């Protein structure tokens, strides 16, 4: 019997961490990773970044320009860190959509937000960033935090985000990037490929998923490449801010 996941010979491949896999299998493999880590995702984020991911998200909020009554789409919103803050900022007249392709992450996010009393102006949608199921010119702000590197066709995803944004609306991409300092880069590599899988093994009993996270970060486009991709997709006034020495970068683009 043939393996249903086996791709036809002519199918183009893409990277899954350091492996090359047929494009049709990447989403499924990424989904497996996040199904595995969903329950302890927040704890692991805090441990892996020493809590600094909260500061990176604070900065994202500051640059979002969100105001009461706005419509916000939080793609790959996972456990809802940004959605919770956006919900407060847009108020009852606004709306925040937490979208994630992964049902486990979406469920954890929904439960967590409901436990914290965040409701009324928040909707939860399981959606693929490459084919967003929303009307054109619908959102004032679209964010994707630590999600773009897991998307198979990043260009398609950026174009899809542009489509759902209103003219003048802004896209914010928060993602791991390339440290500028070679010394920091070496230390970061050592940390990512030794300590990170070890922590993953101890806490979620899944070293492979965390090894994938480290590898996927290395395969993600650097700051200038992503900026060029956003310009290519049709965004204007694209700029980026490095944080923590370039380990993370926040890209911002405006829909013309």
């Amino acid at each position: 019997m043939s393996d249903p996941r086996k791709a036809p010979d002519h199918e183009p491949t893409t990277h899954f961490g350091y492996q090359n896999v047929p494009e049709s299998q990447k989403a499924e493999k990424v989904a497996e990773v996040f199904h595995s880590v969903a329950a302890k995702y927040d704890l692991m984020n805090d441990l892996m970044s020493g809590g600094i991911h909260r500061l990176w998200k604070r900065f994202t909020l500051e640059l979002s320009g969100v105001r009461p009554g706005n419509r916000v789409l939080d793609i790959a919103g996972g456990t809802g860190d940004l959605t919770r803050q956006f919900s407060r900022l847009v108020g009852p007249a606004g709306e925040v959509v937490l979208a994630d392709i992964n049902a486990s992450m979406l469920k954890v996010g929904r439960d967590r937000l409901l436990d914290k009393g965040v409701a009324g102006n928040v909707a939860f949608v399981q959606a693929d960033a490459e084919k967003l199921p929303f009307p054109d010119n619908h959102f004032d702000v679209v964010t994707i935090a630590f999600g773009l590197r897991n998307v198979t066709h990043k260009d398609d995803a950026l174009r899809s985000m542009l489509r759902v944004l209103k003219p003048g609306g802004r896209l914010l991409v928060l993602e791991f990037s390339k440290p500028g300092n070679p010394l920091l880069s070496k230390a970061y590599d050592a940390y990512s490929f030794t300590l990170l899988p070890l922590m993953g093994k101890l806490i979620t009993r899944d070293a492979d998923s965390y090894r994938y996270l480290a590898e996927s970060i290395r395969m993600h486009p650097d700051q200038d490449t992503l900026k060029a991709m956003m310009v290519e997709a049709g965004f204007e006034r694209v700029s980026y801010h490095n944080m923590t020495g370039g380990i993370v970068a926040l890209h911002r683009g405006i829909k013309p």
Partner: protein
Amino acid sequence: MLRQALLAGVEAGLDRVLRLDPTARPRLARLAGKVIEVQGRAPDLHLFLLPGEDGIRLAGHWEAPADCVLRAPLSSLLRLATAHDKVAVLHGPEVELDGDSSALLDLAEVLQDLELDWEYELSRWLGPVAAGLLGGQARSSGRHARQTLESLKDTLADYLAEESRVLVGRREAEARFAELDDLKLALDRLDARVERLIQQAKPTA
């Protein structure tokens, strides 16, 4: 990132204080959506305050336009933070307000009216009996300290006015002021009388 960390720390501390007054958060919720920009001078400080039902969010940068801008020297801002009568400080000459000043005045009022229930916070950690005992002890000590301070103030005033005669006593000063007022009135009357006599002495045309 350092500034983000600092603001996050201050925000968490402020949040803890606001939790001690159960009326603060509902009042802050009425200000949800307002953005207050604070521009401090000497040294420069730029801060955004975003009140809401879960406290006051602080930001070093905010893209959306502010509803109200407060400009003041840092010394005035510190006075504003520590003064009991915050509204009086906001009306000071060196403080400038632009935009919807009611948002800032409302926020100042909420902070001014904070009545912190320390005993409740203690009871969460130590239990109701220990918190009650500690609270009672603290209140009694506070009362005693206030009485001692009042007594010391009175004694010092008495000594300076009556014993050492360095200062004039309040009652003595008030009596002198009353005499001066009488004298001023008498002078005014005399002035008016002289003026009238001059008018009478003038030959009629």
